[in-house]
């Protein structure tokens, strides 16, 4: 209790209590209206907006001394952004941290949803740059509010259909729009559409924070999250031609890694924790031996 009290004088988790209360109230309304963007009074954080200050504020308002935090950028725990945010919360909240998906109670992410299925009681916090899925179609906030209010999503379908007319398929691969619980069209943030199906009826609570745009939204557990599509062009995730070069996983999202300046390259799991776990479990990819020294 003493350590707690000492930390409190430095503002546990950085934010003052009034700010936390305001964000907490916004989170509760976001949960009650799945996929709807709740405005909130975003605070300046000691990091640039591009670093996910919305996600950081949500995590700071939710986090407690008993939590274990994991932070990922792309699928990795060891990028500058992830390392910095993790270090920030270790300093201001003295919180336990982990890279293991299964051990985390809160996972803050930008770009990816972990490959390992999330469980009840886990919270996934997304750092969102642009929360409004209709922004590219309509720049005025008053108009997009009205479109959500009237459930007027025809333009979004037209945009996707133009993709099909131009490319023969829907070309959007990131931030692919979804409909939540049959009502709100929502931007899943810049995750690859590969991850969209993981949002559907997830056991975990999903919270989204956009700092610059001052929006919080949420998907409760066991909620329908359906990617927009057309009968003649159903939604499909990316598929990869070869398995992970290191752990041989074939149902995961892969990143291209350049091996040398002669054009050598390999495809490996974007989720580094998942890849390490599989290798520890004895799964061996085709390049596992050769690249042992250069592997991430």
């Amino acid at each position, binding site marked *: *209790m003493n350590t*707690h*009290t000492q930390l*409190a004088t430095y503002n*546990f988790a950085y934010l003052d*209590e*009034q700010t*936390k*209360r*305001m964000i*907490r*109230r*916004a*989170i*509760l*309304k*976001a*949960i*009650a*209206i*799945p996929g*709807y963007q*709740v*405005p909130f009074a975003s605070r300046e954080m000691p990091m640039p907006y591009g670093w996910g200050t919305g996600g950081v504020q949500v995590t700071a*308002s*939710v*986090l*407690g*001394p008993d939590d274990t935090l994991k932070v990922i950028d792309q699928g990795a725990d060891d990028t500058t952004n992830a390392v910095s945010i993790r270090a920030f919360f270790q300093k201001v909240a003295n919180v336990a941290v982990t890279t293991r998906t299964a051990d985390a109670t809160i996972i803050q992410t930008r770009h990816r949803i972990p490959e390992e299925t999330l469980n*009840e009681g886990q919270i996934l916090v997304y750092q969102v740059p642009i929360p409004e899925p209709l922004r590219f179609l309509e720049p005025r906030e008053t108009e997009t*509010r*009205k479109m*959500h*209010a*009237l459930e007027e999503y025809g333009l979004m379908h037209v945009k996707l259909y133009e993709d099909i007319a131009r490319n023969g398929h829907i070309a959007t691969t990131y931030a692919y729009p979804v409909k939540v*619980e049959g*009502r*709100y069209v929502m931007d899943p943030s810049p995750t690859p559409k590969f991850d969209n199906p993981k949002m559907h009826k997830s056991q975990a*609570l999903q919270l989204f924070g956009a700092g610059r745009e001052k929006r919080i939204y*949420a*998907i*409760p*557990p*066991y*909620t*329908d999250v359906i990617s927009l599509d057309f009968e003649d062009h159903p939604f499909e995730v990316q598929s990869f031609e070869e398995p992970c070069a290191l752990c041989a996983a074939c149902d995961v999202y892969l990143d291209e890694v350049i091996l040398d300046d002669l054009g050598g390259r390999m495809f490996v799991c974007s989720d580094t924790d998942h890849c390490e776990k599989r290798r520890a479990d004895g799964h061996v990819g085709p390049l596992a031996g050769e690249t042992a020294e250069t592997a991430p």
Partner: protein
Amino acid sequence: MTAVQSNSASMFQGGFADPVFNAQLVFRQIMDALARPGRVAEFNGLANPPAPLSPTVASIAATLFDHDTNVWLDPALARNEQVAGWLTFNTSAPLTREPLDADFAILLDSGSLPLLESFSQGTQEYPDRSTTLILQIASLTGGRKLCLTGPGIRDVDNSAPNGLPDHFFDQWASNGLRFPRGVDVLLAAPDGVIGLPRTVKIALGES
């Protein structure tokens, strides 16, 4: 006379002993209650308010209320100077007599529950601007068996909170029809909290 004196003292006592961590703990339980409707979220009376306000309701108030939130009290509570004074002193929340202006409402006497639509429903553009009702009830178990379905619930939840009047269920059905507008409810009993976000559908089980 003695009772009055001890009551007037308690108006300024009984807040959170450890405001930062108690509020975090209670918030997580409330969030879990709304994210997983029907599941009982527990926290043992952290706040200790004057009766008849329960420690559960007082802990919710101490966690979520402040000078930015208008609070409506049911008529009996509003007449209780000790309770109104405790809330004002411990949360700084302004009290309102107008249910339409309320961010939060506390109701002890669920028998005289006003119509849910007399509270703020939010607007179609801003449905988040609606009242959250905190209903103090006898117990979260032992009542009529309910069938809850909706976001946050895997299949169906069979909670049986004790102390909800029959007309609540008709009102709740109407509340659901106003989606995305509508109120959200926290059922608060000595044994914890059950969250009823506006998305939850309630069917009556066998009585």
